[in-house]
């Protein structure tokens, strides 16, 4: 599918290319941010925490920039068919990526609270790191799917999300149980719950990205078709 985007009008190509690479750059930042957030979670590393939080600015700025470029591209180029789907998908994807960034920031902030309270997040719920790993893979794969316009990979991400959701539910259940067991840790547990929740949301957004990729590549709108999590 890649070569389909080679345009007769090389300037259009250039602009489309720029837009896509901006999205990938944003994706890279987001991925990285998620990674540092998880890293922070594991290690209470203040540098990682701050970096995660700070990076959100860049991501926000990129979101605005990409939206602006997309609008320009629509105004200038009247994209149709695959081009239109690409721009349309990008407009949607960017929102999800930004939201992933937000969630990563939430994770970092949660970690900071936990660490500031003198605890180490990992001890509470090592399984969250598991979950985070899975979500990170989803994020990476959704971005890969976008980069390669690979709808099969995107499909895989969507399927993967079901596993993440299930795992999250389990984690949540355990945490609540723990809380009930030990209400001295409630404050901490709440923070952990928020973190778990954020990780789960990242998975959801990655899945959204994957859905948009499928729309871009195949023109199918697969949203809300599978059962939904809540």
């Amino acid at each position: 599918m890649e070569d389909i985007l080679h345009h007769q009008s090389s300037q259009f190509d250039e602009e489309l290319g720029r837009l896509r690479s901006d999205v990938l750059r944003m994706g890279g930042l987001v991925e990285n941010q998620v990674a540092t957030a998880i890293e922070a979670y594991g290690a209470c590393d203040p540098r990682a925490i701050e970096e995660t939080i700070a990076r959100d600015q860049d991501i926000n700025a990129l979101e605005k920039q990409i939206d602006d470029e997309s609008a320009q591209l629509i105004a200038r180029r009247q994209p149709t068919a695959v081009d239109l789907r690409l721009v349309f998908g990008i407009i949607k994807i960017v929102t999800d990526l930004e939201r992933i960034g937000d969630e990563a920031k939430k994770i970092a902030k949660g970690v900071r609270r936990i660490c500031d309270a003198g605890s180490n997040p990992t001890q509470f719920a090592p399984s969250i790191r598991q979950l985070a790993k899975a979500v990170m893979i989803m994020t990476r794969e959704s971005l890969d799917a976008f980069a390669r316009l690979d709808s099969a990979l995107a499909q895989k991400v969507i399927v993967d999300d079901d596993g993440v959701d299930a795992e999250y539910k389990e984690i949540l259940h355990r945490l609540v149980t723990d809380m009930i067991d030990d209400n001295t840790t409630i404050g901490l547990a709440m923070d952990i719950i928020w973190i778990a929740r954020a990780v789960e949301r990242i998975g959801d957004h990655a899945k959204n990205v994957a859905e948009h990729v499928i729309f871009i590549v195949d023109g199918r709108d697969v949203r809300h078709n599978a059962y939904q999590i809540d």
Partner: protein
Amino acid sequence: MPNTTQERLKAEARGLNFFYNGGIQALKNINMPIYDNRVTALIGPSGCGKSTYLRSFNRMHDLYPGNRYEGEIRFYPDDTNLLAPEVDPIEVRMRVGMVFQKPNPFPKSIYENVAYGLRVRGERNRRMLDDKVEHALRGAALWDEVKDRLQDLASNLSGGQQQRLCIARALATDPELLLFDEPTSALDPIATGAIEELVHELKKRVTILIVTHNMQQAARVSDYTAYMFLGEMIEFGKTDEIFIKPKDRRTEDYITGRMG
């Protein structure tokens, strides 16, 4: 949005081939339905045969010697073959109207331009003519602008008005199918907008087949779009689908500007 399953056929090309005088085959085995009361757009690169195809519907090629048709264009509801040698081209033209790329009003008054087709049909009754002229001009959304100067020369109208006059001229004789060959390529964006709006109005009454170089125009005005390439019909489908999700790679390449 129209739904294919509910559509009635107005015409249908079946295995249509066309050869120009020199023997050049400009149309290759075209099969395509034209649905009643729908706008069908023909798009494709320059020289792909859009005009040739369009002009087959009113036997315009018969004006020049040596051209040859093969296959059929079935016309409904009476299910005649427009291309059959025994069918009189003049009769075909009376049923199938045409509007050309450049507005081509006759060097007569506005009134006479619209009345032309009726006069050709032998209509002499002045009251009847007046009525039909008004009706056609209204249909072409031109009445209000010209009603006070029906006797002015048509060439004094603006380009957009002239093109609407040509549409009125075609409408006056109640054609069943209206052919447009790049009807707005000579017009500025404002006049173009008016014509597109008019096409949208007209389809309530008449079936329309429109050739355009402007993909966006095809997307805007049509219910169905056909993509032609090198004399062949590559893809035919609902406009909504063609412009968001064409089935054929060549169609996609063309509408996204990837074909050079």
